[in-house]
């Protein structure tokens, strides 16, 4: 188990280093000057030059790359060009929305998908299975931003049960959870649909394995065989998908954040890219790479926990 974890950790570090270089190089070649963006159409060229100096943009590229890497190792992420506050603070503020939102959506989708997938697999071909398959087909087909708008139309504009968007802050946890509810539902719908289908097909596959027949031959009921033997083995592909979905939910919620004007990480990146706040862009990109590699790492370890055979490899 230790050797397995160490190899995983080494490949994680290598991917992070490569990612940092790629991110830096891509931002180097992207056209657009943050200083020119901030000063608008009437500024003197010398004012733009003064701002470039103040932002540290006049140093050579390798120096800036090493500065950035060194800063990250020391836990310093620099100042946002536009907001003039530490990037770490900006990201932390946004994570307080994006992370709970992702967890909320993930919890919702798991809560819906697991029972639905299990029922559909256990009663394969029956009405419950058909209902689950039909609903999930719809859930995957509906674009989540459109679903989000429908939710707003019904629950915010017509029924006035929720705000149309915005985030009141965590000062009042109930109000905060309420503000995240519609976005979480909108995000969870397609995820739950995918997850339920994976759960179902994976479970159906394991139910056909020899060891299930053996278990049944030992006298277990179909339900007992499913809960004790099949479910555990069926979980591996489902875990992979959950891991991928979690990364997606943190980074990919841009559209939902726009619909509900939530100040999350996705919107921060979107805004930073248009404003050429490269300091924010490269650090958030790096953070997302880190998050995704860490999630993959955690999923790898979870595999090993679920399937002992992997530990010996």
């Amino acid at each position, binding site marked *: 188990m230790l050797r397995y974890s160490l190899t995983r950790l080494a490949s994680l570090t290598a991917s992070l280093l490569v990612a940092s270089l790629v991110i830096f190089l891509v931002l180097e070649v992207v056209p657009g000057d943050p200083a020119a963006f901030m*000063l608008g159409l009437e500024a003197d060229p010398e004012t733009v030059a003064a701002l470039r100096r103040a932002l540290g943009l006049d140093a050579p590229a390798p120096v800036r790359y090493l500065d950035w890497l060194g800063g990250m190792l020391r836990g310093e992420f620099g100042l946002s060009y536009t907001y003039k506050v530490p990037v770490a603070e900006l990201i932390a503020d*946004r994570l307080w929305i994006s992370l709970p939102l992702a967890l909320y959506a993930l919890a919702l989708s798991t809560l819906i998908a697991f029972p639905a997938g299990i029922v559909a697999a256990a009663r394969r071909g029956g009405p419950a299975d058909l209902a689950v398959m039909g609903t999930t087909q719809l859930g995957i087909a509906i674009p989540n931003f459109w679903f989000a708008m429908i939710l707003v139309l019904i629950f915010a504009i017509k029924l006035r049960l929720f705000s*149309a968007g915005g985030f009141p802050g965590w000062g009042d946890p109930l109000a905060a959870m309420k503000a995240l509810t519609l976005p979480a539902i909108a995000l969870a719908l397609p995820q739950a649909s995918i997850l339920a289908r994976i759960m179902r097909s994976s479970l159906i596959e394991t139910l056909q394995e020899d060891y299930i027949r053996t278990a049944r031959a030992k006298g277990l009921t179909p339900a007992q065989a499913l809960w004790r033997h099949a479910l555990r083995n069926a979980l591996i592909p489902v875990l992979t998908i959950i891991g991928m979905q979690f990364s997606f939910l943190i980074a990919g919620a841009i559209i939902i954040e726009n619909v509900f004007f939530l*100040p999350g990480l996705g919107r921060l990146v979107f805004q930073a890219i248009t404003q050429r706040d490269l300091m924010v862009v490269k650090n958030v990109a790096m953070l997302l790479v880190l998050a995704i590699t860490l999630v993959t790492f955690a999923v790898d370890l979870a595999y090993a926990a679920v399937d002992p055979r992997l530990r010996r490899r």
Partner: protein
Amino acid sequence: MRPPLRAMVLAGALALTAGMANAQSSVRIGMQLEPPGLDPTAGAAQAIDSVVYGNIFQGLTRFTETGAVVPALAESWTISDDGRTYVFKLREGVTFSDGTTLDAGDVVFSFTRAVAPDSQNAQKGLFAQIEKVEATGPLEVTITLKQPQGSFLFNMAWGDASIVAPESAATNATNPVGTGPYVLKDWIKGDRIILTARDDFWGEKPAITEATFQFISDPTAAFAAMMAEDIDAFIGYPAPENIPQFQADPRFQVLIGNTEGETILAINNRQPPLDDVRVREAIAHAIDRKAVIEGAYYGYGTPIGTHFAPHNPAYVDLTHLSAYDPERSRQLLAEAGYPQGFTTTLKLPPPSYARRGGEIIAAQLAAVGIKVEITNLEWAQWLDEVFKQRNYGLTIVSHTEPFDIGIYGRTDYYFNYDSPEFRAIMAELDATSDPEKRKALLARAQEHIARDYVNAYLFQLPLLTVARKGLKGLWANAPAAATILAELSWE
């Protein structure tokens, strides 16, 4: 059971009235763009002024809704006969929100800082004529100009000329300290800014004691927030297609005004064949402004024939010089040696007026034989490719700075326009203070660029404001980016 029930009803009623009283003194305003910082003297973003102008920061003079310039921190002033010396008398008892008192030294500091070599002021040009600024008394400032400048008092009304204090200037972007009636209470980055009325404000106390600026960039989300009454007003409402719906709804009021944004089809005056005035005139006659306004802004927007705001008293309607006339257009192209037309580029920044308008203009130009290759650019790309490197043929952009006809005198500007005659008019204007003479000179300037067909002038960008009924004091027009909270109240 009865008394507690009654007590509960009473308490409920009290809570309700308390809630209503609260609603009467607070306002939630929606805006599309969040300011990057809150220092109006460092950065060009209009969103900065939309939040802080007149609320947190004040200047010597200020704009009113009509664009007139009236006293603000300067109570009065005298101008020497040669027009070069201005003596401002500052208001007494003005304090900054950190408790320090405004004196002449703060004014000297503010302007010295704005013109310094390392200044990050986006409108350094406003101060270009200042020779020296001196404190000639505790509340008296004498400003000497290099030469007379008729627009000096106007320039001093800009947010970029706000008066700041030496103790707080460096941190104004995140912790603004000004002389205005409001202070920053909270800023949830990416979401909202909350201003609250100062207890120690030196002037009249405003009716609105707390204001929330909520930033909603997505037009659909703006619609939903307004419809759900999550916000009380949306200034610069981004979806003109919804306006009739709000007009029909008794809960709302709609204000349609003008901004200072002249929306133009900018032309690279040095790139052949666009360097030929006949070609530029042909482009101007090929454009049907009505169709462009209809398509780009659902019919809201005033046609313009030159680079000047129609609500300005000095505006001259010159749209007839570039009336829609495709026949004349083809004729001019033939005269210039392009009977078959030519191909050029049209580079479009992100705003919908540019993207939608660009498609329509491309079709109209194609009708007279001018083929354009459309490229959609992000703002940062546009600034680099079009504005800085001038690698473009045509582009569509709205010039939102007030009174910016002076850019046609800048030979280093991205139009690549160079006219000594125009510069002479501007120099004369700068040296003239007499209002009637200024008006005549401005008319000449407007006509000069219209007859040179420097750019094709499309329309004045409208300002759409949707608000709940009962909110009074909103500006229909925006002579400058500003949301004057002290003028707002609930009926």
